[in-house]
């Protein structure tokens, strides 16, 4: 089995088609994608929902939750199938320190609070 997000990670640099929930489609090269499916595209052709208007854009950022689907080149799945089969059990689509129940965020917040320089500037700002 291949995880959808690992497939998309492997599709970086490839031409993809993204359709948003709005129905607009974006054709371009996938530059970057994160674990929330937020993505960057380059050399984009944006097609309106009705398919009658087109715009060319150098670069765009798409928030993951607005995506309906992505179409990616078919070869990519072949390069991944073997490599994924050993790791599927423990892998998670959550980033390491944001898995449910992880202390990652709290630790980070404490570090922020303990940062005296930061505290000074914040206090200075308040008073």
């Amino acid at each position, binding site marked *: 089995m291949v995880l*959808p997000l690992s*497939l998309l990670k492997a599709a970086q640099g490839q031409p993809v088609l993204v359709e948003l*929930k709005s*129905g607009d489609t974006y054709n371009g090269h996938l530059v970057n994608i994160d674990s929330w499916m937020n993505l960057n595209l380059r050399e984009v052709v944006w097609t309106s929902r009705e398919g009658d208007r087109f715009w060319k854009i150098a670069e765009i950022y798409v928030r993951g939750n607005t995506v*309906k689907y*992505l*179409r*990616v080149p078919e070869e*990519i*799945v072949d390069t991944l199938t073997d490599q994924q089969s050993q790791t599927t059990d423990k892998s998670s689509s959550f980033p390491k320190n944001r898995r449910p129940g992880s202390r990652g965020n709290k630790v980070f917040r404490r570090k922020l609070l303990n940062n005296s320089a930061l505290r000074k500037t914040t206090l200075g700002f308040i008073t």
Partner: protein
Amino acid sequence: MSLLSSYVDKTVSVVTNDGRILIGILKGFDQSCNVILESTVERIFGTDVAMQEVAVGLYVLRGDDIAILGELDAEKESETDFQQIQAAPLRPVVH
């Protein structure tokens, strides 16, 4: 264990929230129900035209957009002449 794991590497049919019907081989899924479909075809039904199948290749479908996912019955599939079937397109899901 997710209920979807029994469908991996099988041909599945997906109905999306916008009323599309996609048939493809389930290659993977995750906790958010995002799925990978390989060799996907979209079946387009109409009331005055025969059913059309459009090959759309490798698909990563976001879980948010999935209404129904199920395994395709190969037997039923082979005995159905889809060219004879006319049907109105499904209406999109409204929230």
